[in-house]
């Protein structure tokens, strides 16, 4: 009997964070307000996990997150931010400090974009924002800055 109730709760969550239609009977204007509020909250949470990515965008950060993640189900701030950073890098618009932050993460962890990132077992090297990151022996070392 609770299956139908659980399905109703799932439909509500999907409409708020995963781009699904507003379920029948709800105030769609208010749900849209909640959807935007949740995106703002999400951008704040991602900013704590990806401080350089957020700081590089200043006041535009919430709008950047909304542009990339509106209607995309939350996967936790680590993956949400990772996805935004990669999309910006692919578009050629990832600012330098944020590129360093991304390279530093990618040196130490493998992330396939579909499941939780895992710590690498083998050494790896990643370059970003003019810095070089070497992951070896369970630690990520920043080998070279912009000044060389």
């Amino acid at each position, binding site marked *: *009997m*609770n*299956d139908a*109730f*659980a*399905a*109703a*709760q*799932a439909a*509500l*969550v*999907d409409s*708020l*964070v*995963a781009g699904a239609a507003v379920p*029948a*009977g*709800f*105030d769609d*204007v*208010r*749900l*849209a*307000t*909640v959807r*935007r*509020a*949740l995106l703002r*909250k*999400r951008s*704040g*949470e991602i900013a704590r996990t990806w401080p350089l990515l957020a700081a590089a965008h200043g006041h535009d950060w919430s709008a950047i997150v909304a542009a990339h993640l509106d209607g995309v*189900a*939350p996967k936790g701030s680590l993956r949400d931010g990772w996805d935004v950073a990669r999309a910006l890098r692919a578009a050629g618009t990832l600012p330098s400090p944020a590129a360093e932050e991304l390279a530093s993460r990618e040196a130490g962890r493998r992330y396939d974009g579909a499941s939780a990132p895992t710590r690498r077992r083998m050494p790896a090297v990643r370059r970003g924002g003019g810095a070089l990151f070497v992951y070896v022996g369970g630690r990520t070392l920043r080998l070279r800055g912009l000044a060389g």
Partner: protein
Amino acid sequence: MADLYGTGVGWRPEIAGVVADLPELGFCEVIAESVDPAAPPRGVVELRDRGVPVVPHGVRLSLGSADGLDRDRAEHLAACAAALGAPLVSEHVSFTRVAGRDAGHLLPVPRTRQALDVLVANVTATQGLLDVPLALEPIAALFDWPGEEFTEAEFLTRLLDRTGALLLLDVANVHANALNRGADPRAVLDALPLDRVAYVHVAGGSEHAGDAAHGDPGVYHDTHTDAVPAEVLALLEELCDRSRPRAVMLERDGHYPPAAELADEFTTIARTARLARAPR
């Protein structure tokens, strides 16, 4: 009833120094999901060692989930209480997760018999894992479910009666819900089971003018990142006129003001609620 007195504050790492320096601190609350029971934050442990009661406050237990309780999370809440020697714990009348989905936010449950049964089952199961009382907080919600069978006060009274849980009353939530529905918050206070109040939350919020562009005029957001508005303090006074709570606390979750401003807000709340220093 629960052993809380005086004026408290939600402990957050960003304001640990300010909280530790408050001269009349009666108790504090800590977000349960931010606590590792094996190694609680040092600032919280120091307060507890000074004799300041610490209340673990859960935000992700999702007691309103129709697909049942996440037992690991309930056990975590119980472990936090044990690790901190807490006099009680608190959570929300809400759901955040269901069927593998996570809204990342407290969402309202429908005020129906069916949802009441779900909450009673999940609350009772949680209480079975706890050695201390559980207080339940009604949330601020911008919308309601269709087909509801109870008012919030009726729903809450039934929930507390059936579970024996205490009430964590957030006057800012009462203000927000009433304002966003064109209701009188004082009438809501009159209907709530105030004899079940363990402690009271006070928090800031803001009117969100930007949403008027989308056809929603004057939505009040319970942000916890703004100053406490005069209307919320006035509602705290209204509450005290009806049933004076023994413990009231300030919740602030971001955009932290300078220390003096936060301390002033704390003092204003203590004065408004007519709370003296905690008896120890």
